[in-house]
């Protein structure tokens, strides 16, 4: 069957089982849009800014585990998409981004809307391709999906010059991908897994530290089984929330810069640490020198060898897919007669319970002003802990992480690595489209939400009933918090003046707006909003301007050097 390049592109997407393409048309992709117009296999979602197209594809991918797809034009189309691509790259999200390019003959001529898309995106993609020959188009698309979704996932860009999309060629998508240069390891080394099991049995103060890799590998079941089998404490990174049920008693909370006291203390004082799909980043372990002060043996399971022994020296590295490695580890432990020293383990739990007893997440529940933590807790209650929660970046993000315990993976959708403000609303669109009947909340702040506020228009067009929970403290809260702690209360440019009336703004886009100013109105407002199943409701919660996120590990400090709420 002979098709033109645009039709081939679209056919490839259909054959990959793509449900949604998030995009924005422009000159270089007009042929592709024409081909989209003539098909009905997938739905195209027209965003209002290319950054949002990529975030929406990202939200779709995070909440489903499938590859997200975005389509943008050349020049400003792709440069606008870069923030979204970098966001997905930092969090290892499977994604294919298709960008139009000026015609082959015009490349390098400083043509209208020309930009070196391959060069600009190279440092923030898993791989990218410039299709220079129509013969290579289908095979390149196949490789792009394969690379994006296997190994450590990540975004892959396919840059297609306009003339290629107009050329005819026979369509065939039956090829298999065989790349001599790319063969990700799945199965872990059996000898190493045996060593790991032995080390776990020898532990006196064990700790399981798991991250986004568990979610990406769909290994929550295995992580939960292993943790229960061993009776060890488990902590999740920001990216890993939901991978272990957060309401379980063996869960000690999130760790890191805004982690719980007990999680950070247990991490530092453990003698055997099992790191699963996590990468010891600076927001998690703080200073590596401080972390190394206490001796411990570390087992590290990761599909990416470059994540192992990068910031922290590891004793037993295991390269492989988390689910496959955990399966084997569980089998070994079950078959063994050995068990961890029960007396030592119960002493360790007693210590952890003592740390827990300081109740590091307490806040003023009697406050006459709305406390942001209170809003998140009520959100959890009203949604029975079952909502998908997307966030932007800052204080609200940390409060959502701390006060909305997730019992399932892929419910927590946040930009962890890049920390992208403006992520929440478009990501929520992708989540809601993938899960039309689910409750989807975008927890945000008045500063973040304005970075992609235009997507309220997309939500109207496609009837996306996201619930926006705006924690409005009239400050870039996290910036203000750092300025308060480390810059002598000099609040340089962190006050958000001239805010819009969010209620009217929501209404002008055709949505429902609510302003909530008293604590007693929080729960009723949330109930009313979530009862409106067909509508986007923008809830503007006027919260305490001075509230800070605790505990807090100052940048570069050790994870046990926490500032706690009561000390201030």
């Amino acid at each position, binding site marked *: 069957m002979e098709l033109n390049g645009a039709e081939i592109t679209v056919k490839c997407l259909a054959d990959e089982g793509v449900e949604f393409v998030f995009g924005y048309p422009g000159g270089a992709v007009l042929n592709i849009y024409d081909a989209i117009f003539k098909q009905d296999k997938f739905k195209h979602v027209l965003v209002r800014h290319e950054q949002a197209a990529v975030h929406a594809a990202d939200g779709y991918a995070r909440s489903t585990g499938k590859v997200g797809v975005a389509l943008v034009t050349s020049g400003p189309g792709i440069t606008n998409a870069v923030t979204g691509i970098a966001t997905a790259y930092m969090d290892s999200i499977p994604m294919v981004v298709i960008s139009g390019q000026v015609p082959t003959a015009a490349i390098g001529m400083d043509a209208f809307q020309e930009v070196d898309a391959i060069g600009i995106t190279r*440092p923030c993609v898993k791989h990218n391709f410039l299709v220079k020959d129509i013969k290579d188009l289908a095979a390149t698309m196949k490789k792009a999906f394969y690379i994006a979704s296997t190994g450590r996932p990540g975004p892959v860009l396919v840059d297609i010059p306009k003339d290629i999309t107009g050329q005819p060629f026979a369509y065939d998508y039956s090829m298999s991908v065989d790349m001599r*240069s790319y063969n990700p390891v799945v199965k872990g080394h059996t000898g190493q897994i045996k060593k790991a099991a032995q080390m776990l049995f020898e532990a006196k103060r064990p700790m399981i530290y798991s991250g986004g890799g568990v979610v990406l590998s769909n290994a929550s079941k295995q992580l939960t089984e292993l943790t229960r089998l061993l009776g060890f404490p488990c902590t999740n990174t920001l990216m890993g929330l939901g991978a272990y049920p957060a309401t379980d008693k063996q869960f000690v909370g999130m760790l890191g810069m805004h982690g719980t006291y007990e999680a950070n203390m247990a991490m530092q004082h453990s003698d055997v640490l099992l790191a699963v799909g996590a990468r010891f980043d600076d927001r998690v372990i703080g200073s590596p020198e401080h972390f190394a002060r206490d001796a411990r043996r570390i087992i590290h399971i990761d599909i990416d060898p*470059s994540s192992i*022994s990068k910031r922290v020296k590891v004793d037993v590295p295991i390269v492989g897919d988390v689910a496959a490695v955990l399966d084997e580890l569980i089998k070994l432990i079950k078959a063994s007669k050995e068990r961890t020293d029960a007396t030592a383990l119960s002493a360790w739990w007693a210590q952890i319970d003592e740390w827990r007893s300081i109740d590091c997440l307490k806040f003023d529940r009697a406050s006459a002003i709305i406390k942001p933590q209170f809003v998140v807790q009520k959100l959890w209650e009203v949604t029975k802990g079952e909502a998908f929660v997307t966030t932007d970046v800052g204080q609200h993000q940390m409060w959502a992480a701390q006060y909305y315990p997730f019992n399932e993976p892929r419910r927590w959708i946040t930009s962890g690595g890049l920390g992208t403000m403006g992520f929440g609303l478009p990501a929520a669109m992708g989540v809601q489209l993938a899960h039309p009947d689910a409750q989807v909340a975008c927890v945000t702040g008045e500063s973040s939400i304005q970075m992609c506020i235009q997507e309220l228009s997309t939500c109207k067009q496609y009837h996306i009933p996201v619930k926006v929970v705006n924690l409005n403290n009239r400050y870039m809260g996290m910036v203000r918090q750092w300025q308060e702690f480390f810059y002598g209360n000099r609040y340089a440019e962190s006050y958000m003046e001239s805010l819009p009336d969010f209620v009217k703004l929501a209404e002008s886009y055709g949505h429902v707006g609510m302003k909530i100013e008293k604590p007693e109105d929080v729960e009723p407002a949330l109930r009313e909003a979530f009862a409106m199943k067909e509508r986007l409701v923008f809830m503007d919660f006027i919260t305490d301007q001075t509230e800070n996120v605790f505990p807090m590990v100052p940048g570069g400090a050790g994870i046990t050097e926490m500032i706690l709420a009561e000390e201030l």
Partner: protein
Amino acid sequence: MRHIISILMENEAGALSRVAGLFSARGYNIESLTVAPTEDATLSRMTIVTRGSEEVIEQIVKQLNKLIDVVKILDLSDGSHIERELMLVKVRAFGKDREEMKRMADIFRGRIIDVTEKTYTIELTGPGTKLDAFIEAIDPVAILETVRTGASGIGRGERILKV
């Protein structure tokens, strides 16, 4: 420590910029980098000379392996290997210097590949240290121009980097 790393990679447009970009993005240093296609035209072989602690070199190798276009890597410094570099030096060669330059080229087993009334162009091959020694040995004022390829390397004996 100095390491010499050999990389076999797909001979694709942009492959070189992926490697160079990786080094600059992650703050690794490159002392020299050479690249050319191999006997198999679909493969390029690159030789990178870099410096770093064992941890840094380990990361460099891992990060290089992560590049989709990279097929195989060998840290030649892990075993015994041979290194060669080519240098072309244009030197002033008139009056009493002319005979002296010829003699120096002979001592270093260089070849004079271009001659004018006033200059010689000398071709010299060897490990980088030998080329350095030659530069040291001749009068700096006499050097008009130098160009070096950077090191190429290959493992000794049975040590082979091949797909």
